[in-house]
Each structure stands twice: as structure tokens, then as C-alpha cells.
């Protein structure tokens, strides 16, 4: 079956004072209907830029933006900015920003901000008509209804994030991009929000593209995991495999760096730093830190299909060719 979202060879480069930053450099990704894909990776590996590229929220210094983003069979890259705004934004693709961000307009009441997409979509003629829907949306995410008349600064961080989630879901879009939705919150609030997201996914059947650096968060929500390293997705596949037996050496290292309840083993940190996105190495980008580095790693690694996904590593290219 055609997946809900298919990202092919997506590239997003930025112009900076020190040169071209290849933040997203040929990303392949799929989000199935009703599934949650977690994009995992260290800070600075291009996760947030990937979210931006999918959402087409491009900063001013974009140097290059190409590839294919196919939502529901339609190539979004072919749409003009205005077409994209009218046909895709929020109704089919919405967004929950990072919890630390002041993502709500400080001078508008919660009610008006949550209702805004409804009257933009022409579902209500005036914001006042949206009252019932707004209150239902707030109730669904566990925000007391009388908070609707408050201003964002009168809410706690967790409540604000719930409002952001209510807002993202108000038009019932098939796909929601969540960019580190819980990272800036305390552990308890984080757990509450993750439970809420799990419930919502189950109730509404929405697909989530979850951007996170936190393996634990991913393990809570993800059906599939995309491991990102230096602007590329190095491994993509079912979450179950990622947590049981990751393929790519980087994915293994990432997996080993967190404590597990099921195994008796101390977490092992991964030494070194990711390469600069200004001038990534020509061959495999992980080669310098890879414990299993061997001869072909100086060449760009191939995209090897494995069951339920793919991996970008010479190790498996060898196996694939040997098997043949």
C-alpha cells in the first residue's frame, strides 16, 4: 500500500557565513497510515531541519531545497507556496513545535489561537462559532475549558504544549510533525504528555512524524524508527528491530548509550563528535567513529534494503552481494 508520506532524496542546504551547511542531505523516509515514525539522532544531525523541510517552513538563508515529499500520493514539491498553504498546511499536515518555544502568540487568547485554523479552513464563519469545537479539542488534550479565555503566559509549559497539540489536531490532519514535543519539560509532565499522545494516536488514527533525540521517548511512541546521522537517514525500519537488534553501527551505538530495563548491561557512551555539516566526509559519514570500519568505508555507502526498511552501510552491501 502507498504510505501516507514518502520522502525521497530530500535535501535542504543553508547558506551561512562559514559556508554551505548540508543540514538535510538526501533523506529517504516513509510514514505509513496511522503509524508513528520517530526520527532519532544527536543534536545537530539535521532532525529539526528535516521537520522544516517536510513542513516547508524554510528560513531565509536556504541555499538549496530539493527532493520529493509525497503526501497521500501527491508530490508537495510541485505545489506553489500559495497552493501548499491552501491545500496542505494544517488541514493535511500540522505541526507541534518544541516545548521550549514560545509557540503561542502572547497577545491572543488561547481560544482564538486554537480556533484560527477552523475559520481559515472555512469551517466556521466567525471565531465565536468555533467555541464548541475549541472546547472539545481542549478537553481532549486535558486542558481545563476555562483556560480557553486565558493568555499563553498564564499557562504552565506543560499546559501550553497541550494547547499546541489541541491546535495541531483541530482539523484532524492525517499527519502531524512533532518536533521534540516533550524535551524541554520535566519528567512527570513528559510522561503525561507521552501518554496523551499515545491515547490520541489510538483514538484518532493520526500519523506522527516524531523528531526526538531521546531514545526513551521514541520507544514509547514509535512504530518505525529512522536513525539520522550527519544529515542522512542511516537506518530506517520497524521500531521493534531498532530496540532489539539495530543494524547500522551508529544505531547500535545509539541504542547502547541508554539504559535498558530488560538487560543487565551498563550504558556505553559513544566517543567523538558527528562530522561538520559544512564539509561532510566523502565516504561513510560515520566512518571516523565506527568500530567496524573497513576498506570500502571511504566510498559513499549504498542504500541497502532490508526487511521493513533500509540501512546505509557497507557491512550489509557485502552481505547482500554475498547472498546473491
Amino acid at each position: 500500500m502507498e504510505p501516507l508520506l514518502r520522502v525521497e532524496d530530500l535535501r535542504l542546504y543553508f547558506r551561512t557565513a562559514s559556508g554551505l551547511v548540508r543540514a538535510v542531505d538526501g533523506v529517504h523516509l516513509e510514514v505509513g497510515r496511522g503509524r508513528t515514525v520517530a526520527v532519532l539522532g544527536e543534536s545537530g544531525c539535521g532532525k529539526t531541519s528535516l521537520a522544516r523541510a517536510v513542513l516547508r517552513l524554510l528560513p531565509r538563508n536556504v541555499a538549496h531545497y530539493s527532493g520529493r515529499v509525497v503526501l497521500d500520493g501527491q508530490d508537495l514539491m510541485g505545489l506553489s507556496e500559495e497552493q501548499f498553504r491552501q491545500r496542505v498546511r494544517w488541514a493535511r499536515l500540522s505541526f507541534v513545535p518544541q516545548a521550549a518555544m514560545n509557540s503561542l502568540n502572547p497577545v491572543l487568547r488561547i481560544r482564538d489561537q486554537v480556533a484560527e485554523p477552523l475559520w481559515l479552513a472555512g469551517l466556521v464563519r466567525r471565531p465565536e462559532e468555533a467555541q464548541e469545537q475549541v472546547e472539545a479539542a481542549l478537553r481532549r488534550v486535558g486542558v481545563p475549558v476555562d483556560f480557553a479565555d486565558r493568555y499563553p503566559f498564564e499557562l504552565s509549559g506543560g499546559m501550553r504544549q497541550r494547547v499546541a497539540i489541541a491546535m495541531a489536531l483541530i482539523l484532524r490532519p492525517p499527519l502531524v510533525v512533532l518536533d521534540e514535543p516533550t524535551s524541554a519539560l520535566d519528567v512527570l509532565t513528559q510522561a503525561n504528555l507521552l501518554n496523551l499522545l499515545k491515547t490520541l494516536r489510538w483514538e484518532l488514527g493520526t500519523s506522527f512524524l516524531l523528531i526526538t533525540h531521546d531514545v526513551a521517548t521514541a520507544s514509547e511512541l514509535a512504530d518505525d524508527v529512522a536513525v539520522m546521522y550527519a544529515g542522512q537517514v542511516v537506518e530506517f525500519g520497524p521500531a521493534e528491530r531498532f530496540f532489539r537488534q539495530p543494524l547500522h553501527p551508529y544505531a547500535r551505538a545509539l541504542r547502547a548509550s541508554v539504559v535498558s530495563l530488560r538487560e543487565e548491561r551498563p550504558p556505553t557512551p559513544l566517543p567523538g563528535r558527528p562530522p561538520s555539516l559544512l564539509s561532510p566526509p566523502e565516504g561513510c559519514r560515520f566512518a571516523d567513529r565506527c568500530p567496524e570500519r573497513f576498506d570500502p568505508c571511504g566510498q559513499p555507502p549504498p542504500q541497502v534494503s532490508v526487511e521493513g526498511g533500509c540501512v546505509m552501510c557497507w557491512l550489509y552491501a557485502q552481505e547482500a552481494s554475498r547472498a546473491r
Partner: protein
Amino acid sequence: MVQAAVTAPRGGVRQHPAVRVLLYALARLAALFAAVVVGVYLTILVANMGGYVDQIKRAEIREQVALAVSLNEQLRRLPADVRERVAEEMVRNEERRLGLDRPFLSRSVAYLRDALLLRLGFAERMTSDTGSRLVRQIILDRLPATLLLFLSAQLLLFFTSVAAALVLSRRYGSLADRLVVALAPTSAAPAWFYGIFLILVFAAGLRWLPFGGMVDAPPPEGKLAYAASVLRHMVLPLSSLALSSIFLSVYAWRTFFLIFSSEDYVELARAKGLPDRLVERRYILRPALPTILTSFALGLIGAWTGAIVLETVFNWPGLGRALYQAVGLYDTPVIVGSTILYAYLLAVTVFALDVVYAVVDPRVRVGAGGQG
């Protein structure tokens, strides 16, 4: 349960909102009044050169009396010692008339009281254009000209630069944008500097526009012709005011809008699919409104006193030139009079801004939610 716990303290804080707002307003007014008192008293001290003006006046009185005595036939015939005594008596009378017999500090307090009560009194040397010696009349005669020129300049500049800045912030890095950034330093030169050039080119060289003044002499008959003549006289001063600040102003506003448009909620608004106009209005201009209003209001007050040198260059009959004249003549009542008006106007504006902030920005509202 959760709701009750959260709303309870809020209800507690809001027990007497009217009383709280009133107290806050009174406290603000008191603080502003104190600032006005200090400002005006300092002006009185400075305008009198801390009492040194008294000595100048005493010397002048002696000179005048000596002159009067020497010109008076009757007095000249008196013996020298008697004449001396009469002269001394005249000096003392004159000093008493001007209050110079009392120490300056005690008089300065009386000046302060009169100023605060807007009893502006008589000018010491100047007369108004209509021939009155009342300070109030001197100011009122000059004010319309200054307001006409500087208010229209301020309105024109403000709205043009804000509108242009919005357009530029949308086209960050475009040719027009880079041009404005490059031209911003032209505002380092004051308006009168451009004024001299414009006069050279358009009045002296091309003879298209008048050198200065506010209307033709003699003033044309009929309201329309009069207005047209005033407009023609306003072109050069307005242009020099515009030239001296438009690029810097556009640059500043454009940077301000760029900062506000990189807020996270602006990005989210775009993700929500709001059209650009709406994003600009609700997510950039609206949250920035307090700053915009402040700048606008303070600019308007600035229009009051005008610009001394520009009015002089263009021979514009405004308050700035009157003030300049007053400074040159040590005419302290005129200096203090225009200062007190300015101070009161500033205080009233700041108070009005406080009220407006509370209306346009929920975060400023007194004690709302305990965080604002």
C-alpha cells in the same frame, strides 16, 4: 478539582480590581509628577545659571540707572553725593521689583510653584509676534507653525517608514533592502545640513521653491491660495527632515520587524496556513504594537519643541526659534514656560501610554495571573 485549585488564587488576587487599578494609576501619576517637578526645577536652575543670571541682571540695572541719571537734567544738577543716593535708591527699587533683593534659592522655589500651576507670567525682554509680553502668548503664537511643520513631518515619516520597513522585512536581502541598509548612515547628518543643500539647489539654483518663511509676503488673499503658499514653503523643510531620518528609520523598523518575525509563534502561524497579510497583522504587528505606539507617541511629543537650527535655516516662525532667542536673552520665564508645557505633555503621554499598554498587551495588565 484541578480547575478549582488553579482558579482560586486568581480569584483572590482579583478581589478589588477597581481599587487596585486606581491605586496603581495614582502611584504612576505621583511618580510622573515627581519627575516633572525635578525636571522643571533643574530647568529653572539651569536657565538662571544657578543664580548667575541675577548678577548679570544687577549689572544691567546699574548700567541703566547710571544712564538714566546721566540723561536726567534735574538729577545732573544735584550734588554728587545726593545724586549717588538717588541712584542707589533707584537701583534698589528696580531690584526689589524684579525680586533680586531676595536670595535666588528662595525665589527659585516660587518660580517652581508658579511654573507647576502654569502661571507663566511675563517675559522679561521678549514680546510675542502679536505684541504681548505674556509668556503664554509668546508660546501660543509660535506653536501652530512648529506643530504644522513637525507634526506633518513626524506623521509622514512614521507611517512611510513603518510601511516601507514591513515591505523590506518581507524581502530581506533584496536590492531595495541592501540599498536602505547602505543609505542608513546618511541620517548622521542633521536636517538643517540637508536644508542648506536643498535651499542651494531648489531655491537659489533652480528657483522653484522659496528660500524660507511660512507664507509669501504679502500673504495671498483667500484661504486656498494661502494654504497653497504655506504648502510650497513647507516642501523644503519637510524634505530635509525626511532626508535626514528616513533611511535610518526604515532600517531600524525593518530590523525590528525582522526580529519580531523570527519569533516561534510567527513560524507556527505560517505552518497553520495563515496568509502572509494575516501573519503580519496578527502575529507581527499586534505583539509589537506597544513598542510601535511608544515610538509614535514620543515622536509626536518631540514635534512640540521643533528643531532650533532647522527653523533658523528656513526662517520658520516656530517655537524652536523663540526658545533660541529666549536663551540668548536670558529670558528665563520663556525658557521655563516652554519647558513646563513640554514636561506636562510628556508626563500625560507616558501616563496615556501606560493605559494603552494595559489595553493592547495582556502581559502588562496589573498583577494578572501573578506573572504580568
